[in-house]
C-alpha cells in the first residue's frame, strides 16, 4: 500500500502517544490515555454540521487499574504495530493484525489477545484517542459495494475508467483515501441500498443515460462506501441521492450516509455526507405509483398491542425520536408508516415493469426534486 498524505501526521500521533505514556511512567505514575466515551449518551447531533459527533465526555484507561491493564497493554501493542505498518507502507486487515499480535504471555496462562472481539474495540479506542481514521492506521476491512459511472480514478498508478467495467463495476476497498479522481462527466451520485437494484440500474444503463455515479452499497454501507461517497461529494461537488427500501432499516441506512452512525460518531466528519437527499422509497410512493398490492407488512408488534412495540415498529419509533429525523417531512413519513403498518421494497417497482425504476421513477423524482431531506 502506498503512502497516504496523512501518514506523516499519523506517525507523529503514535509517537506522541508513546512519549506521553513514557513521561508518566518516568514519574512513577500509572500511564493512561483518555478517549471519548462512545456510548449513545455521549453521541450528539451537530445541527449546524448536520452530522453526529461525540460529546465531551472522556474516559480514562490506566495501566495500574487491574480492570484496564489488559486492554491498556493491547492498545500499546496495537499502536506500535500500526506505526510499523504506516512506516513500512504496508497495510493489514484487522484479522491479520489480530494474528500478528496474538501470543501467550510468559508467566501467565492467557494470551495477549483471546479473539478478534478483543482487538476490534481496542482499534476503535485508538482511532478515537488519536483522532485518526482506522484507514490512516493502515488497517483494512473487507471490501464491499461497487461503483459504476462516468468517472476515471487513479489507483496505485493505474487508471480505471468506471464506465468500462461491465456489469462488475469497481469493487470498493476499505481504504480509498489514496484514490485520485482524474476526470468525470457525472451530474449526481446515487447510492443504492441493495445489490440487486444496483444490477437492475446497470442493466438499464441508468448511469450512462443519466450521467450518474452509481454506488451500490449492498446493505449497510461499509466505511469504504461512506468514505468514498464523502470524498466524491467533496471533491467533485456533486449532489448525493440515496435510494433504499421504504422501511425503518432503509431509512437508517440513509441517515448513516448522511449524518454518520452512532458507533462511529467520532468519524462522521470524514464519513458522512450531510447534504445527501433521500429519493425513496417512501410510503407516499405507494399511493402515488399504485403499489398498494405489492407492499409488505411492518415486522413485529405495534405499540398499541400487547407486547409491542417490537422490530420495525420499535425501530420506526426510535427513528422518530432521533434529533436528525426531527424534520417535519420525516416525522410525517414515519407517522404514516406506523399508521398504515406498511413497508415497501425497492424491487416492488418491478411490479410495473423492469425498466420502470430507471426510466420513470428515478428520473422523475430527480427532475421534480422530490426528495426527503
Amino acid at each position, binding site marked *: 500500500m502506498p503512502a497516504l498524505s496523512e501518514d506523516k501526521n499519523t506517525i507523529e500521533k503514535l509517537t506522541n502517544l508513546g512519549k506521553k505514556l513514557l513521561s508518566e511512567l518516568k514519574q512513577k505514575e500509572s500511564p493512561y490515555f483518555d478517549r471519548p466515551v462512545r456510548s449513545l449518551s455521549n453521541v450528539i447531533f451537530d445541527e449546524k454540521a448536520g452530522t453526529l459527533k461525540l460529546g465531551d465526555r472522556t474516559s480514562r484507561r490506566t495501566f495500574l487499574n487491574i480492570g484496564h491493564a489488559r486492554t491498556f497493554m493491547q492498545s500499546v501493542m496495537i499502536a506500535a*504495530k500500526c506505526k510499523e505498518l504506516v512506516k513500512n507502507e504496508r497495510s493489514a486487515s484487522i484479522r491479520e493484525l489480530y494474528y500478528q499480535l496474538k501470543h501467550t504471555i510468559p508467566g501467565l496462562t492467557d494470551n495477549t489477545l483471546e479473539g478478534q472481539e478483543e482487538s476490534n474495540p481496542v482499534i476503535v479506542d485508538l482511532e478515537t484517542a488519536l483522532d485518526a481514521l482506522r484507514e490512516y492506521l493502515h488497517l483494512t476491512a473487507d471490501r464491499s459495494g461497487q461503483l459504476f459511472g462516468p468517472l476515471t480514478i487513479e489507483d496505485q498508478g493505474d487508471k480505471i475508467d468506471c464506465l468500462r467495467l461491465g456489469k462488475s463495476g469497481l469493487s470498493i476497498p476499505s481504504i480509498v483515501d489514496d484514490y485520485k479522481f482524474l476526470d468525470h462527466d457525472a451530474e449526481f451520485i446515487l447510492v443504492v441500498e441493495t445489490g440487486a437494484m444496483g444490477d437492475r440500474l446497470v442493466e438499464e444503463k441508468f448511469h450512462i443515460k443519466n450521467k450518474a455515479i452509481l454506488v451500490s452499497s449492498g446493505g449497510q454501507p461499509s466505511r469504504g462506501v461512506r468514505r468514498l461517497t464523502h470524498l466524491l461529494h467533496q471533491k467533485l461537488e456533486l449532489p448525493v441521492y440515496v435510494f433504499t427500501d421504504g422501511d425503518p432499516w432503509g431509512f437508517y441506512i440513509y441517515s448513516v450516509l448522511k449524518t454518520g452512525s452512532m458507533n462511529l460518531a467520532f468519524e462522521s466528519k470524514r464519513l458522512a455526507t450531510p447534504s445527501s437527499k433521500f429519493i425513496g422509497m417512501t410510503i407516499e410512493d405507494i399511493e402515488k405509483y399504485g403499489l398498494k398490492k405489492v407492499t409488505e407488512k411492518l415486522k413485529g408488534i405495534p405499540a398499541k398491542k400487547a407486547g409491542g412495540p417490537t422490530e420495525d415498529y420499535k425501530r420506526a419509533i426510535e427513528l422518530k425520536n432521533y434529533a436528525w429525523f426531527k424534520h417535519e417531512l420525516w416525522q410525517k413519513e414515519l407517522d404514516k408508516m406506523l399508521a398504515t403498518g406498511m413497508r415497501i421494497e425497492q424491487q416492488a417497482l418491478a411490479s410495473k415493469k423492469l425498466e420502470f425504476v430507471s426510466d420513470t421513477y428515478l428520473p422523475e423524482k430527480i427532475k421534480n426534486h422530490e426528495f426527503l431531506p
Partner: protein
Amino acid sequence: MDEHREISIAEFFEKNRHLLGFSNFQKAIVTCVKEAVDNSLDAAEEEDILPEVHVIIEDLGKDRLRLTFKDNASGIAKKHIPKVFGKLLYGSKFHKLMQSRGQQGIGISAAALYAQLTTGNPIQIISKLKGSTKVHAFTLHLDTRKNEPEIIKEELLDTYEFPHGTSIQMDIEAKYTRGTHSVFQYLKSVAIVNPSAKLILQEPDGKIYEFPRVTKDLPKKAKEIKPHPYGVELGILMRMLKETKARTIGSFLMSEFTRVGKTTAQQICKAAEIDVVNGIRFVTGWERRPNTLSKDDIERILRAMQTTNIQNPPTDCLAPIGEELLNKGLIKELNPEFSAVVTRNPSVYRGMPFQIETAIAYGGGITEGRLMRFANKVPLLYQQSAGVTMKALKSTDWPRYGLKQSGDLPQGPVLVLMHMCSVWVPFTSEGKQAIADYPEILKEMKLALQEVGRKLRTYISKKRKGQIEEKKFKTLTAYAKEMVEPLAYLVETTTKEDISMYFEALLKSKYTMIGGVAIDNETLKELQKEVSQQEEENASTE
C-alpha cells in the same frame, strides 16, 4: 449358695475392664501411658517442677510390651509406694474438689493391675523423694482378693536418673500402633497443652521422639475448694454429713461449703423446714445435730440448698493453660499457618466453677479437619461425636468464619481445640471421654468458638485479599514486560532496558512485598484498619 462373699475391687476390675479403658490391646496401652503421664505431670505441677517424662516401650514378643515411665517429679514417700501402686482407689486426689488430671482415671494402680492380670509379671517402682537422698526400689504384686499390695522385693539403690522422681516398669499384654488412638498421638496432644513439659517417647523399634519444652513458664497452679451447695448430690451430702465434725447443721453448712455464711445457712435451714422432728418443734432447724437427720430431712436440705440464692463459687481455683502458652504448644507441635486462642472467663455450672479454652489452627502443618478435646489438660481420645463439644461445634456457623461446612463440621485444613478445666468435669460415662451437655458449658464453648472464628475470618479474608493482590501484581508485571518493546518502538528515543526499569520502579512504588507476597499499598492500609477494628470488636465482646 447361701454363702455371700464380698467382691474385691480387683475382682470387679477383672470383670469390668472395659469401663476402665482396657477393653482392647490398643486402648490398654494408651490407658497405661495416660495414667502414668497424668500422674507425673500432676505431681510436678504441684511442686513447681518443670516436668520431664520418659515413656519407653519395649516389645517382649507374643503381644507383650514392657512399659517404663520415668519422671522428675517430687517422688513418693517410701511408706506410700506400695499402696499407691498396689491398691485401687488409693490416692491423694480422690476426695479433693480441685482441678487435676488424675480425676479422670481410676489410677496407676489399675494399670498395674492390668499388667498383672495379663502377664502375671510384678511391677517395679523406683522413687526418690524430693529432699531425700535415698532411692527406694520395690517389686510389687497385687492381691486382687484382698485389694492389698504384696511386696516381693524391696531395696535401696545408689542413684536415680533425675534429682528426684519416680520410675515405674510394668509388662502388659498390648499392641503398639500409630494412628488417631495411639500413644504417639496421646503424647503429642499432651505436649500441646503442656508446653512447659518435656516428653520423650521410645517406640518398640527403638525410634525416639522428643516433644520439646518451649517455655519455662509454669502453668498457674490449681487450688482446692470446698463444694458449692449447688454442686452436691444426695449421696455426697449424706457422706459429708456422716463425716463432718460440725455439731449443728448451721455450722456444717458454713464450714463444709463455699459461699455459705450465716445468712445463707439460715435461709437454707428455714427453707428446708427441718425444725419439726417427730412432732417436736425445735427453735430452729439450725441447731439440729447432723447425725439426727432422716433421709427425708437430708433430701429437703438438698432441695433447699439448690433453691436458695447463693453467690457463685470462687473461680480462682481454676488453672487454665492460658492463651499464650496454649498457642506456643500448638505452634511447636503442629506448626500451623495461623492460630488463635481464646481463654474465656471462668463460669459456673451446677455450682462447679469451670473455664473454657478454645484454639483454632489453620493451614501449615494441618492438612485436614480435626477436633482435639481436652479436660483438665488431659486429651480425650475417644467418643468424639458424643458430648457437648461436638454439639457446640455443630451449632457454630462456620461459613461465617470463612470455612466450608459439610455435615456439621468445618472443612479444610483446620484444627479446633477445646479445653475445659474444672474442679469437676462432668463426663457422660465412666469411660470419661465425653463431656456432658450442661447449658452453661455449651454456651461458653459456643462463645469461645465464635471468638476464635472471628479471628480466623479476619486472617482468611486477609489471605484471600493477599492472594488476589499477588495475582494482580503478577499480571501487571507480565503485562508490563509485554509493553516494553512496543513502547520502545513508539517513542524511538528510549531503550528497552530503560523502559523495563521504569515499569519495575512503578510497580515497586505501588506494591509492598510482605513475606514474599505483593500487596497493594492502599489495600494494605485498609487491611491494617480492618484488623485493628476486628481487635476492638473482640475486645468489646470480652
